[in-house]
């Protein structure tokens, strides 16, 4: 675990916390881009109601294998269910928002 962000201060709202896990491969360009893109998406759409865990497969290779993470970067939405996996640098935000269940609710 390289970086962990916790921005769940606004628990007063009824909106559930979105739990995310991002698998990255060190500082590979796609992974660096993915972190930047995810941060931007969360800031725009999930401000204060998300939780991101970042797993670097180079540091935790056995965990990557155990979790079945072969392609990186990989974003996994753990909750709310259903679990969704989004592969890539997250440069196209539309499919990401759709997968996170944010495409309709977006203002």
């Amino acid at each position, binding site marked *: 675990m390289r970086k962990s962000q916790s921005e769940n201060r606004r628990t007063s709202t009824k909106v559930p916390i979105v739990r995310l896990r991002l698998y990255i*491969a060190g500082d590979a360009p*796609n992974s660096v881009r993915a972190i930047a893109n995810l941060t931007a998406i969360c800031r725009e759409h999930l401000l204060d109601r998300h939780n991101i865990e970042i797993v670097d*497969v180079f540091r935790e290779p056995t965990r990557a294998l155990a979790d079945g993470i*072969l*392609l*990186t970067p990989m974003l996994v939405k753990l909750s709310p269910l259903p679990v969704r996996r989004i592969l890539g640098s997250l440069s196209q935000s539309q499919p990401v928002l759709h997968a996170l269940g944010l495409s309709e609710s977006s203002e």
Partner: protein
Amino acid sequence: MNALLKLTNPRPHKTKAPTGILGLDEITGGGLPRGRTTLIEGGAGAGKTVLGLEFLVNGARRFHEPGIFVAFEERADRLIANAAQFGWNLPELQRKSLFFLDAQPTPDLIKSGKFDFGGMLAGLGAKVRQMRAKRIVFDAVDIVLALLGTQSDVEWEIFKLHDWLMANELTAIITSKFDRTEFSPAPSQSLGFMQFMVDCSIVLSHLVGQGISRRNLRVIKYRGSSFEENEVPFIIGNLGFEIAAASAWHPSQSAVSNDRVSTGVARLNSMLDGGYFRGAVVLITGSPGTSKTTLAGAFAEAACRRGERTMFVSFDSDSREVIRNLASVNINLDHLVKKGTLRMISVLGTVGNAETHLVRIQKFARDHRTRCLVIDPISSLVQFGSDESSKGLSARLINWAKKEGVTLLSTSLLERASPELEGTPIQISTLADTWIHLSYLVRAGERNRGLSIVKSRGTSHSNQVRELILSGAGVTLTDVYTASGEVLMGTLRREKEQAERAAEIEREAKADRDQNAAEAEEAELVMQIAHLERELKAKRADGLQTKASRSSRRSENRQRQAEMKELRKSDAEISKRK
């Protein structure tokens, strides 16, 4: 000094990782390039996965090289279940020397932007170190490459993958599908890039021609090594991948033998000046029912009696039937099968192709440590293949037998009666060392079997046609009678024999009669002589008597005349005195 040692004592396994797949190691001169990557491409169902898996299984089992299987297409549990039929016992190997990684892209995977193999390589790197893996297979890499998108991304990932493999000193197989039906110089771009990068490239093809399936393997390139460049046939059999070994690759190792082995028929042995040569290729041709199988059976029985392990492959009939039928002519194979010296294999129906059967025969023969092999008939074996392939097939079979020092006896069906007209459709006749032809001679409402030796290299063999006689006592050959340019067999021969015997008796009787007559004549003559002698004596006796009586008569006469004179004296005396 070191260089010299290396030259004089080459160690092929230093640069090659044996696959343990017999034919493959032969055509690649020892295995796949060690520490390098081999690309295996082929259409769907060509056998890529099985080849990769067997490479790992053999590595783990026989060469102490643990391996990792990365399954992009088929799930590992299904692969393991499918491989159970090969008897590889994967669950046992999985405990420490074989690891399966399920790497199928999940169908619900959402793509957004670019990605790479980073996670997989990191995870695998850890696994490689943990297992001390030496081998790895990426099965169906095309699946995951297709996700990558642009060509440049694909090439970049292939490059990184290759780099990672080299860094980890893994002997790798990457398999990939291609859509081409025939191998053409137009592979997809990513495949072309891979071909350029890898050190060894193999193409598997699975073609169906005239309803007959044919699998071929071809090595396209092998950096730093010579290799068999031709397509070689292979099958996926009960034990996995089996490749028809290209025997021309190896120099002949078995010495040519002057040893003779019995044909199983005493008279035939003498016709061949002692029997077949050991390690020879014997061909027996003939129409249906000319007892080709019987001669083959006699050979097999004789071989087993000498204690030589023998295999009898029958294509036309069930082996139990063969055993039963041969028992009727006193060729008893049953107990030899039970003893284990003889192995009977029967192939029924037209399942599979010729190559499949050839590879299986070779495999069974090796397992059985066969010294003498019977294929009955080889014409059924090659009928599965197309013409040009069957020629190569019999040549391969013969080369293989010669190399192994196996005495090979094949029978072959001839549609026409004369071997000279036809030759054998499979061209084995030119390759065979000894060629025996069996034929029917039909005369006087009877069919009889004739045997002649068409050729027998290196032996002074009889040029005579012999009659082949089958009976409960066994197989025998007998001389045929030639009468006015035709050979006589069967009843005609027996009639001829009987006629000769009768004539002989007649001559004997006549001689007896003649002798008796002569003796009788002689006796008669002797009797006649005795009779004559007696007559002579009698005659003589008569003569004497006549003489005696005549002299007595004379004296009587004289006396009488004197008396008469006395009486008449006066008259005559008076007249005289007067």
